[in-house]
């Protein structure tokens, strides 16, 4: 039998490092005036609109009593000001090389073969395919998430290391495929590819996305995950850094790596690319698209790939390398090997 992946401690640092995304309000025609957006807590009287138990539904008196309850809630909200019609989202993205070295590894067999395999991949592809997809996700403004939905116009301005700026009309780029092409896109993709394959020491780009959403419209920063909210009754807590409403860096990272069109159910699912994840999981569908049963998950592919076996297609190699670019802890329990 072939050698096994013997690394029980195995970790890769992420190679695409986004900052938090800060939200500002401005106007589409005059972008010289930019103001940080702040969170405002508001208390509202909600309606009772959840599904009620059948016993309640069938008793009009009880139903009335239930529906008349005030259902008070306090939530955080964030909106543009009256004189602002455009949301500006700004973040930086650092791209690093060094994919051929895990940040921690204790498997001698693994170390022996992986280094060469990774270098082979870099030499063969130069990361062009992945870089192009990352570049398109920067250009199409996917990281605006809900703020992109219903925006009339979206413009993305990318500043490179040397001060050069590229500008993209995000609505020109499809969120469903990666067929787009333009000279600016190629320039951006070229830089990302060079950084990922180690030809540049690092690449730091600054991304500013402008979305015309309409005056005083609500915008959507990240929601905070607070498990134990204490006795305060706020039910939704949004994210802010030094008073400026913000998107979590993790959320921006997830959007940029939404490049996986290689999962088995791609054609039937009809949801387009999904984020690069070891099990191809999509949180809002509560579903994992790459299951170990189909042998399409990261670990099944990686164990073969890292030890020098060839995978069924180039696409699978792209996927495996994209997970390594994402980073994570990929060691296995020592017990399972014996």
């Amino acid at each position, binding site marked *: 039998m072939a050698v096994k992946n013997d690394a*029980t*401690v195995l970790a890769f*640092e*992420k190679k695409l*490092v986004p*900052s*938090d995304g800060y939200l500002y309000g401005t106007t589409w025609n005059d972008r010289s005036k930019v103001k940080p957006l702040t969170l405002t807590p508001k208390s509202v009287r909600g309606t009772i609109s959840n599904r009620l138990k059948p016993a309640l539904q069938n008793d009009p008196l009880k139903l009335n009593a239930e529906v008349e309850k005030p259902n008070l809630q306090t939530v955080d909200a964030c909106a543009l000001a009256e004189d602002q019609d455009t949301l500006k989202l700004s973040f*930086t993205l*650092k791209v*690093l090389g*060094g994919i051929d070295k895990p940040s*921690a590894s*204790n498997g*001698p067999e693994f170390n022996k073969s992986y280094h060469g395999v990774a270098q082979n991949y870099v030499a063969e592809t130069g990361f062009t395919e992945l870089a192009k997809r990352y570049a398109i996700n920067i250009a199409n403004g996917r990281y605006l998430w809900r703020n992109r939905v219903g925006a009339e116009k979206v413009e993305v301005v990318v500043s490179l290391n040397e001060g050069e700026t590229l500008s993209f009309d995000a609505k020109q780029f499809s969120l469903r495929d990666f067929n787009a092409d333009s000279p600016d896109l190629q320039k951006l993709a070229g830089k990302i590819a060079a950084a990922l394959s180690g030809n540049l*020491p*690092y690449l*730091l780009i600054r991304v500013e996305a402008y979305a015309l959403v309409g005056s005083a419209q609500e915008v959507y920063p990240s929601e*905070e*995950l*607070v*498990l*134990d*909210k*204490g*006795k*305060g*009754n*706020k039910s939704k*807590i949004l994210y802010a*850094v*030094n008073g400026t409403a913000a998107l*979590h*860096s*993790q959320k921006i990272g997830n959007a940029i790596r939404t490049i996986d069109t290689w999962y088995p159910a791609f054609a039937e699912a009809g949801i387009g690319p999904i984020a690069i*994840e*070891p*099990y191809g*999981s*999509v*949180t809002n*569908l*509560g*579903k*994992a698209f790459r*299951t*170990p049963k189909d042998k399409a*998950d990261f670990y099944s592919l990686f164990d073969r790939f890292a030890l020098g076996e060839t995978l069924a297609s180039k696409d699978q190699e792209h996927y495996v390398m994209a997970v390594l670019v994402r980073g994570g802890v990929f060691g296995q329990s*020592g017990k399972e090997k014996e």
Partner: protein
Amino acid sequence: MSYRQFLLLPHLKIHNANALSSPYTIGFPAMTAWLGAVHALQRQLRQQGLSELQLNGVAVSCHQFDLQTYQGPGDFVRSIVGTANPLDKDGRRPAFVEEARCHLEVSLLIEIQGLDSDDDQRFIELVNQQVQRMKFAGGDLLSSRPVEILPVNEDEPASMKKALNKLMLGYVLIERRALLADSMRQEGQDALDALLDYLTIQHRATQDGETVSWESKRKTAGWLVPIAVGFQGISKPGVAKHQRDPDTPHRFAESVVTLGEFVMPHRINTLDDMLWQYRVDLQRNLYLCQTLSNA
């Protein structure tokens, strides 16, 4: 020897750094994290040809600190703002693991030795590049200012001041282990009691006729904090199954927590008060970070 040479890494903006500095404290990242980062930097630079270089001690000045916790109106305790992990292979949400994180901005002042003055330019270039590729305290570096080499003559106040000003508007972490040792010796307290004694705020009332005035204060003035400064070995060095590095003996250890104080750099009189270094005491199985003046 009053002439010393320093490397300044100014205003490193770091986010999502590990704020779980020891098993029972959260807050400023542990000293081991900063010394670890400096050690990693030294190894990288040596690999790039500066083989004589030594990075000997580090001072950490904190300009801004944002702990990711939430305290609702009227709450006494704060709760950790968490992050969720991706779904597992069945599409289910895995259990939450609460990990305290922080965003912070620090400057590191690192003492250097063994740098050939011909190499200055190359050294600066290499450091500028290398810093961008590193992680600090488990967090990502978002931005930093260009690094500098600072020669300091400790006998000259102007030269000291110049270096300390570079760390200003911030607070440097110094060690206040002596406070703990004193109260343990004089008052016979155990270590944890002594530590808590310095951290609690005591409210006292004094009555003067009809008027009662309240006074809230700590045992000693100063911004005292519990800090994690290293490890105490609790088993014999040996080989454990699947340990990370098979060639180095491995042992179980627990954190050592003591008192530290954040002070404004202009109040520092000797650089040794704020420069931290590794110290190993194999007799007592201690692996510590200590300031040079406490060593």
